[in-house]
C-alpha cells in the first residue's frame, strides 16, 4: 500500500467529549439587541459603567462587518439566531461549596477529567470552571487568598473588585478592536479574573475549563489576568464542547497585563468539537487573545495546543511595550477531517531591547487546511529588538494543506530578525523505519507527531504536557489502517 493510502485514515478519530448534559438551564431567546444586553447586565447586577461600556461596544459592533481575510471558508453566522445567555438553573443562591454543586455538573467535569475535588488540591491545580456562561465552582480559593491572589469569575470580580476591573478591562483589547472583540464586549457573560499582587509568585497553576453545553448559545467569555510588579502566574485554559450538527460560535477575549518584572505564562489546550468526518457541525473558534508587557523586563508566554474546533481563527499576541520585555508564542495545531485553522501570533515590539520567540508547529491530515499567519512589528523606538520565528508544518496524506503567511514590519534598523520555515510529510520511510524496529503503524505515527511537537510540549506545565501528548494520541487514533 502507498504512503498516502496508509496514512490517510489518520482522520477518523471519534470525539470523546461529545456528550450533552441534561440539566435545566435559563436561556434567553435567540437574538441580539440593546434589551438583551441590558438583560444580561441586569442578571449579573452590573454597575452602570459596565452596562454603558457594553452598549458602546454594541453600537460600535453594529457599524462593523464580519472579517473574511482569514484563509478559511464557512457560511456566515446569523447573529440573530444565537442565544446570548444560558445559565444552569441555580438552587437558591448558588453553590457555596462543591458539595452543593449539581452532581450532574460534577459528573460532566469528571467525564472531562477535570480536577475539581479536594484531592486535586494536592496536585496544585485550582479550577475555575465555566459551564456555559456562569462559573459554577471555584476551588482552592483559601490558599490563593492567603497569598493575596484574586482568582474568581469575572462577574464576581465586577462586584468584589470593581476598581481593578474598571482600571484594566478593555485596555489591551479595546471594545472596537475587531468584529468579534466588539461582539464579546457587548455580550460577554463570564470568564476568569486573576490578579497577582506585587512580588507574589502564584502558589499553584491556575486552570479554567470552558465547555459549551446548551445548543445554539454562543460562548463569549472574557478573561482578564493582571500580574503586578514582580508577580508570576501560570494559567491553563482547557476547552471541550459536545457534539452537535449545527455550528456553534465561540468568541472569547483574553487580556493579559504584565507590569515591571512580572511574568505570565498562559497555556491553552483546546479540543472543542471539530465537526464530523463530513465537515458537519463543530465550533467556530474566533478568539482575540492579547498580552500587554506593560512594564520593563516583563514577560508573557502563550503556549497553545489546538486540536479541536471546525474553524479556528486566533492569534495570541504580545505588545512588548516595556523595555527589555519578552514575548513568546509556542503553538501546536492539528487540523484533520474538514477542520480549518488560521492561527499564529503578532509580536509588536515597542520598547528597547525587546525580544520575541515564535515556534509554530502545524499538523494537517485528511482534508484539514491550516495557515500560519504571523506579524512581527518593530516600532521606530524599539532599538535592539530581536525576533526568532520557527514555523514548521507536517503533512499526513495528500489531501490536506499547509500555508504560511509571515508579515514583517521593521521601523528600526537595529532590529535582528530570524525566520525559519519547513514543511515535511510523514514519510513512508520514517514509518517503515519504526515498524522495522517493532513499532506498529499507529504508534509510529504518534511517535513521529509527538517528536515534531516536542519543542512546544516542553513549554507546557509538566502535567499538561502529558495531557497534550495523550490528546494528540487520541486525536490521531484510528488514523492508520
Amino acid at each position, binding site marked *: 500500500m502507498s504512503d498516502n493510502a496508509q496514512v490517510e485514515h489518520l482522520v477518523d478519530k471519534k470525539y470523546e467529549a461529545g456528550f450533552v448534559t441534561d440539566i435545566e438551564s435559563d436561556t434567553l431567546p435567540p437574538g441580539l439587541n440593546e434589551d438583551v444586553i441590558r438583560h444580561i447586565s441586569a442578571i449579573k447586577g452590573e454597575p452602570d459603567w459596565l452596562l454603558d461600556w457594553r452598549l458602546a461596544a454594541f453600537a460600535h459592533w453594529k457599524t462593523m462587518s464580519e472579517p473574511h481575510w482569514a484563509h478559511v471558508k464557512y457560511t456566515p453566522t446569523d447573529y440573530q439566531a444565537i442565544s446570548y445567555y444560558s445559565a444552569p438553573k441555580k438552587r437558591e443562591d448558588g453553590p457555596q461549596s462543591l458539595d452543593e454543586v449539581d452532581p450532574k455538573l460534577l459528573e460532566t467535569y469528571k467525564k472531562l477529567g477535570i480536577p475539581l475535588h479536594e484531592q486535586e488540591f494536592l496536585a496544585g491545580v485550582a479550577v475555575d470552571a465555566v459551564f456555559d456562561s456562569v462559573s459554577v465552582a471555584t476551588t482552592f480559593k483559601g490558599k490563593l487568598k492567603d497569598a493575596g491572589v484574586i482568582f474568581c469569575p469575572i462577574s464576581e470580580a465586577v462586584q468584589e473588585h470593581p476598581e481593578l476591573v474598571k482600571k484594566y478591562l478593555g485596555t489591551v483589547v479595546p471594545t472596537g478592536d475587531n468584529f468579534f472583540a466588539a461582539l464579546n464586549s457587548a455580550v460577554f457573560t463570564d470568564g476568569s479574573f486573576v490578579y497577582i499582587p506585587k512580588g507574589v509568585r502564584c502558589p499553584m497553576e491556575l486552570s479554567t475549563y470552558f465547555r459549551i453545553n446548551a445548543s445554539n448559545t454562543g460562548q463569549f467569555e472574557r478573561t482578564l489576568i493582571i500580574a503586578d510588579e514582580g508577580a508570576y502566574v501560570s494559567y491553563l485554559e482547557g476547552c471541550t464542547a459536545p457534539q452537535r450538527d449545527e455550528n456553534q460560535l465561540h468568541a472569547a477575549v483574553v487580556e493579559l497585563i504584565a507590569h515591571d518584572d512580572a511574568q505570565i505564562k498562559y497555556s491553552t489546550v483546546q479540543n472543542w468539537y471539530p465537526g464530523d468526518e463530513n465537515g458537519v457541525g463543530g465550533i467556530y473558534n474566533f478568539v482575540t487573545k492579547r498580552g500587554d508587557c506593560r512594564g520593563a523586563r516583563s514577560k508573557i508566554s502563550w503556549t497553545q495546543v489546538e486540536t479541536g474546533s471546525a474553524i479556528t481563527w486566533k492569534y495570541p499576541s504580545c505588545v512588548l511595550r516595556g523595555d527589555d520585555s519578552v514575548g513568546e508564542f509556542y503553538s501546536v495545531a492539528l487540523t484533520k477531517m474538514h477542520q480549518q485553522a488560521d492561527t499564529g501570533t503578532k509580536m509588536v515590539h515597542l520598547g528597547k531591547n525587546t525580544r520575541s520567540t515564535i515556534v509554530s508547529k502545524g499538523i494537517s491530515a485528511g482534508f484539514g487546511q491550516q495557515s500560519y499567519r504571523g506579524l512581527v512589528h518593530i516600532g521606530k523606538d524599539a532599538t535592539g529588538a530581536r525576533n526568532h520565528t520557527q514555523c514548521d508544518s507536517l503533512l499526513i496524506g495528500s489531501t490536506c494543506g499547509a500555508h504560511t503567511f509571515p508579515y514583517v514590519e521593521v521601523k528600526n534598523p537595529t532590529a535582528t530578525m530570524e525566520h525559519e520555515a519547513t514543511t515535511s510529510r510523514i514519510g513512508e520511510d520514517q514509518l517503515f523505519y*519504526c515498524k522495522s524496529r517493532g513499532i506498529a503503524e499507529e504508534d509510529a505515527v504518534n511517535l513521529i507527531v509527538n517528536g515534531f511537537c516536542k519543542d512546544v510540549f516542553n513549554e507546557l506545565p509538566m502535567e499538561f504536557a502529558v495531557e497534550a501528548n495523550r490528546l494528540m494520541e487520541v486525536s490521531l487514533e484510528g488514523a492508520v489502517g
Partner: protein
Amino acid sequence: MLKIENLHASVDGKKILKGIDLTIKPGEVHAIMGPNGSGKSTLSNVIAGRDGYEVTAGSISFHGKDLLAMQPEERAWAGVFLAFQYPVEIPGVNNVYLLKAGVNARRRHLGLEELDAMEFMQLVREKARLVELDQAFLSRGVNEGFSGGEKKRNEIFQMAVLEPSLAILDETDSGLDIDALRVVAGGVNKLRSPERSIIMVTHYQRLLDYIEPDVVHVLADGKILKSGDRTLALELEKRGYDWVREEAAHA
C-alpha cells in the same frame, strides 16, 4: 531458519528479483555481493516487509512461518532486523525512546513483562559500550544530524539492543573510514552467536576481512549467480562481476 524459494519481486511493474533461492541456517553469516542496481537492497527490503515491493512469485519461510504474510512489525517481533543502507532521520524522536517502544512492543507480543525505564537504560548503556557509541547519541533525535558513519554505528547499536535472530546489514560498511569499519565490524562480531544469522550486503570484500562469512553469494541481474566460500569474494575483487555473468550464461 530462513528459506527463500524462487522469489520474484517487482517495483512499479519493473521486475527486479528474478528467482532467488537462499537458505540460511542458525548462526551462519552470508555475504551477498553484487554490482549496483542488482537488487541487493530490494531483497533486504522484501525480507523486512517494506511497502511498494510486489512479490509476484516464490516464498520466504522464517522459523517455519510464512514471512510474507506478516506485517513489518510482526517480522521484527519474530526476530528480523534490517540495518538500513540509508537510515532516515526522525526529528525530535529520542533515539532511546524509539528503541524502548520497539523492545517493549516485542516483549508485549511475546507475553513478557515490559522493561521499565531503569532496566532499559541499563540495557542500552551496556549495548552502547559494545559498539563504542558515545552516550550522547542515546538521547539525540533518531539519526538527527548524525554523520554517515554515526548513522551506521547507530544501526548496529539498535541491532545489539533488539537482539534479532536474523540481521540483514545493507551496505553497513559503505561510507565508513577504516577506524569506524573496525569498530562496527567488532560490534557485529560480538553479536555473532549460534542462534543468530546474519546477511551482509556489501560491495567490498574488505568488510569480509573483519567479519568472516560462512558463504559468499553473487547477486546480479536479480538472481544469485554463484555461491562459494571466502575465496569467492577475493576473486570478485580481482576480476569484477562479468566473468560470473558469463559463466552463468554458459551454464
